[in-house]
């Protein structure tokens, strides 16, 4: 088997293959439903209904996409510069901690929202800065350090929530006090959970896109990612660029935690994120590291998950089918995206 690059992939291929991936996922969904003793034909409708079937469902999909856009952007920015940041989860929690620190009365309106957002970004950036400095100064592999810091951060959050940051009014449950009203991101639609964090995520995606394609920093980040030696020779401050990348990446991941606390939960608990940091890697790679693509792929991931999760209840299938379908959709989709650019030649 051989793969031949296609110079200019036709539109039919660019649309057809991803569509095929979706169809294949739905076939898997039907097969799984059959195995679980549910009606396979009904599942398809139920998935669509669960993801987009009502205003509520659609907004829930957007809601679940929100943190994924942030973490997806964080990963995309870092991976572009070949900085393997697997630690978006930890940076997310750093942002969440700051949202609580500044949002529970330390600051009042109108300062609290912008200041705590910026402070959250800084905190996330600092969490990533450690591994990056270790990498640039001592050559310590950042895949491992950022990965391990996720565990450390989660334990640290657990400590905070059982210790200094525990809500005195929380009846003993390990969670932080609630944010004051001024520190909350307002909702977009009354009564439904979607909040302005989503809009912020879209703005962040556009901002990252502008940075990457229009600014000198973006040019430097791409150059450093592609060929560090050539970038250094061309006079780019490679380590400074890596640090800036880390600041941006960690900051974006932190915004995910910040917006989940300020927009959705109103307080911090140690189960704030069901792995948004890790899913962010998937989102970013699915988007081929393109910031605007991140928005699409986050919506895709969220829709598949929310849709199939909802389907599992309606059809009476074990809820774990949602993750199975998400993983299946993901693998089919990366394969399809690759095959839009390559032709398989059997010989």
């Amino acid at each position, binding site marked *: 088997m051989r793969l031949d690059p296609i110079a200019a992939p036709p539109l039919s291929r660019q649309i057809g293959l991803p569509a095929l991936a979706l169809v294949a996922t739905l076939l898997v969904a039907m097969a799984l439903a059959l195995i679980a003793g549910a009606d396979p034909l009904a599942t398809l409708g139920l998935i669509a209904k*669960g993801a987009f079937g009502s205003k*509520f469902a659609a907004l*829930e999909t957007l*809601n*679940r996409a929100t943190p994924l856009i942030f973490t997806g952007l964080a990963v995309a920015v870092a991976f572009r510069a070949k900085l393997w940041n697997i630690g978006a989860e930890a940076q997310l929690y750093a942002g969440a901690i700051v949202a609580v620190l500044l949002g529970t009365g330390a600051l009042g309106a109108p300062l609290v929202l912008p200041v705590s957002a910026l402070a959250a970004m800084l905190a996330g950036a600092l969490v990533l800065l450690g591994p990056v400095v270790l990498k640039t100064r001592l050559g310590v592999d950042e895949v491992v350090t950022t990965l391990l810091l996720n565990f450390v951060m989660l*334990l640290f959050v*657990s400590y905070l929530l*059982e210790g200094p940051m525990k809500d005195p009014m*929380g*009846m*003993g*449950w*390990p*969670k932080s006090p*609630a944010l004051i009203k001024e520190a909350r991101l307002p909702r977009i639609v009354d*009564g439904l*959970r979607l909040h302005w964090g989503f809009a912020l995520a879209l703005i962040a995606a556009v901002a990252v896109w502008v940075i990457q394609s229009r600014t000198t920093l973006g040019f430097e980040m791409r150059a450093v990612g592609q060929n560090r030696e050539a970038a250094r020779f061309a006079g780019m401050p490679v380590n400074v660029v890596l640090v800036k990348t880390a600041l941006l990446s960690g900051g974006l991941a932190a915004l995910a935690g910040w917006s*989940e606390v300020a927009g*959705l*939960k*109103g*307080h911090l*608990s140690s*189960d*704030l*994120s*069901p792995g948004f940091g890790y899913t962010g890697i998937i989102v970013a790679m699915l988007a081929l590291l393109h910031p605007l693509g991140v928005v699409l792929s986050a919506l895709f991931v969220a829709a598949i998950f*929310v849709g199939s*999760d*909802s389907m*599992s*209840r*309606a059809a*009476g299938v074990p*809820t*774990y089918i949602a993750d199975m379908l998400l993983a299946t959709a993901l693998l089919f989709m990366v394969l399809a995206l690759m095959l839009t650019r390559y032709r398989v030649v059997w010989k």
Partner: protein
Amino acid sequence: QDTIKIAGIYTVPVEQQWVSRIHIAAEAAKAAGGVDYTYTENVANTDYPRVMREYCESGVNLIVGEIFGAEAEAREVCAEYPDVKFLLGSSFMPDEAVPNLAVFDNYIQDASYLSGIIAGAMTQTGSIGMVGGFPIPEVNRLMNAFMAGVKETRPDAKFQVSFIGSWFDPPKAKETAFAMIDGGADLLYAERFGVSDAAKEKGVLAIGNVIDTQADYPETVVASALWHFEPTLNAALEAIRAGSFKADNYGVYSFMKAGGCSLAPLGTFEGKVPEAAMKLVAEKEAAIKDGSFTVAIDDNEPKSS
């Protein structure tokens, strides 16, 4: 009479001890008739309000589950669906403003206390090991009551307390228990799966918690403090049928008085527990039931001594 449609929403798989008691009670109610029951497990707290809404929209009558990690948002959903009744595990009190939400928790300190009395009598070394998942109120409360019970029969008892930071890591719980046995413990308080296994392998004793596992460890598990969710659920079902469901604290239905908890039968350990201790247990049980004695509720994190 219409069947009542119950939906369970759990943040962990139904194998988790706490949730398993709710699940079993609901299945039993379903088997008894007049009730329909579906459930969904392993729901992240982030998704909890969405799942609540989905069930509400699908037309269920009663939602049971746990909202410790999603209090504020969950209460909003409750308020939005006044026709659906909610019976949810919560650390907070019921709120008149949300009349369709009643709360509960596993207040089985009574049984834990009694199991402590037996433990105090059974330990030789006076050193007791306790392995927990996280120091949350449900866990702390039972541990503290157990420790108070131990003091009745063994005032000089020493406790080793550890939390493993996970609900589902039996190998880790087991290793922690091994370490406590090395540290001199000859009786373990089995809050997590894995602890009784360590006790069994090393030939020391264990006290069960929430569920009865003596069948798996006949030589090891002396006694267990059991939680019965049935009284709680039945009270709610009755209230619904009577049209009198309201914001209420169902915690009391877990008390021994209400039949919400009990000491598991001694079973294989029948006759092996000192007479005096069993007498004390019987006395205290009677006193608890007639209200002349109450076991203190202490939700603070227990510490090693």
